[in-house]
């Protein structure tokens, strides 16, 4: 049976969780169809160190492309290399529907003259097609598509497939760049962590998000304090708040911002406009704190407290600290 390729994203010398999600998805398909999982690692010399983790998650083979010209994301060389490799015969290829994935995957597909399935939350393989689901209309509609292209190129929404260990050999093979990587016309000149070295919204198990109910930018300190008490939490915001400059645009959760589904989402002073709900309604557990008991956020919240968020947050922060200390 043809093999399944999984592209494992790295950035700034770190393997991203999405890189394990793609391998887990590929393993799931290979276990059903009988092919092997070929995981791909591209980066500066040393990136091959992650091969063992990809093997632990189900890679039979890890294809490693190491070169100084891949220290930053090098889209044109990666596109050319992957299109060449996929042309050698694969059933499917999984990528992350991340910022990098959205830059990369459609180009690989177009180079091969293949349609592709973007931002997929569910997939099912049959002999000659793949049926996928992908949210649309600001996540208010679930779209089901049938992809009849081989290889089936798929980008996976973060969290659609959670990493599962399923150890395979993970034999390391060197992968050669299809073009001189220094010849790429598109050059990334700098990659840098956003200020504060925060946990990324897409990867944080807990998100504490603030809205207009906080009344002013300075009160976001209360949200940050609660996030710090959890220790594994990222801070998010509504569009109203980022539009007013209280928080950077990159913190915005909602239909035009980040789409998140953490284990716990704490909405602080957020009324729950439909655009915001679109970005977080798939969270496992939702807590809402809002002074208006009719606020729509309470319709999606598992646990709600009606009251002034400025009054409640310091108390909640202390209680979480105590619970964490006792745990």
């Amino acid at each position: 049976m043809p093999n399944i390729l999984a592209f494992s994203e790295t950035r700034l010398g770190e393997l991203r969780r999405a890189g394990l999600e793609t391998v887990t998805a590929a393993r799931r398909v290979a276990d059903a169809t009988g092919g092997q999982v070929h995981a791909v690692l591209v980066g500066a010399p040393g990136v091959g160190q992650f091969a063992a983790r990809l093997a632990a998650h189900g890679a039979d083979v890890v294809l490693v492309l190491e070169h100084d010209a891949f220290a930053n994301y090098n889209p044109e060389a990666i596109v050319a290399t992957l299109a060449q490799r996929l042309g050698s015969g694969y059933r499917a290829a999984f990528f992350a529907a991340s910022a990098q994935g959205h830059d990369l995957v459609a180009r690989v597909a177009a180079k091969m003259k293949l349609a592709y399935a973007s931002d997929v939350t569910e997939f099912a393989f049959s002999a000659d097609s793949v049926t996928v689901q992908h949210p649309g209309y600001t996540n208010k509609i679930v779209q089901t598509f049938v992809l009849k292209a081989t290889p089936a190129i798929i980008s996976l929404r973060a969290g659609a497939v959670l990493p599962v260990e399923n150890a395979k050999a993970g034999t390391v093979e060197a992968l050669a760049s299809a073009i001189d990587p220094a010849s790429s016309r598109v050059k990334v000149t700098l990659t840098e962590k956003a200020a504060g070295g925060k946990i990324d919204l897409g990867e944080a198990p807990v998100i504490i998000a603030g809205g207009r109910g906080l009344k002013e930018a300075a009160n976001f300190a209360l949200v940050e304090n609660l996030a710090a008490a959890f220790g594994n939490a990222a801070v998010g915001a509504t569009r109203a708040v980022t539009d007013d400059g209280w928080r950077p645009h990159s913190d915005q959760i909602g239909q035009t911002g980040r789409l998140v589904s953490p284990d716990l989402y704490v909405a602080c002073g957020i009324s729950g406009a439909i655009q915001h709900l679109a970005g977080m309604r798939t969270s496992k557990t939702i807590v809402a704190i809002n002074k208006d008991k009719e606020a729509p956020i309470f319709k999606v919240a598992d646990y709600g407290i009606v009251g002034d968020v400025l009054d409640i947050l310091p108390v909640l922060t202390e209680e979480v600290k105590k619970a964490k200390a006792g745990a």
Partner: protein
Amino acid sequence: MKLAVCIKRVPDMEGRFKVGPSGTAIDETGLKFDMSDFDGYAAEVAIQITEKLGAGEVTVISLGPDVVQETLRKALSMGAHRAVHLKQDAPVSDGLAIATAIAAELKDGGYDLVLLGRMAVDTQNRSTGAFVAELLGVPFISAISQLNVEGGVVKARRELEGSYELIECPLPAVVTIDEGIARARYPSLKGIMAAKKKPMESKPAQLGAITYQLEKLELPAERAAGRIIGEGRDAVPELVRLLKEEAKVL
């Protein structure tokens, strides 16, 4: 400098959606339509470039039935110079087939820079820009939050999950526009009047082959109704207990 902006007509996302009787289209009854948000930012960025240079031309392109001419006319009233309507009456769900038609129109147009929104807010595929760039064989930078075009070079910034990148490429190029770079202006009365006299060309779209087919649309499953556990700070200990014992997230 010649710029092209690809725009899509989409329903207003504020509304509630229902699936129409075909099962593959939303019920358009009562919905308002407008330019996709990100495409509006792309149009604004392109218009600002020509305004700053005091020269250049912005062509707006849209694919769809005749009604997309309304959306093109809006871009003209914002300040774009000419419009091209790629006529396609039946809906198409294959992004590569659509991009093939757009690339065919752009190919011999001599465009220095092609701009699109980073995604259409209805289908959320985020692929058209990349498809078009690859089909044209030109450099591509997606989802940019800052842009500077000078001396034949594009310099841009892209927000990533928890970090950012600075990127450069030579013209001609295709870029897609993220939030935070520019807000689409409201057309002035003068702009609306001027738009009526601007050229609008309509021609059949030359779609590529279809291998990605929409099968159905559905509403997502509703979340189970939540509960309000109390009022004010006195409810906090009970919340913490539930997070620990019931939700097991603490």
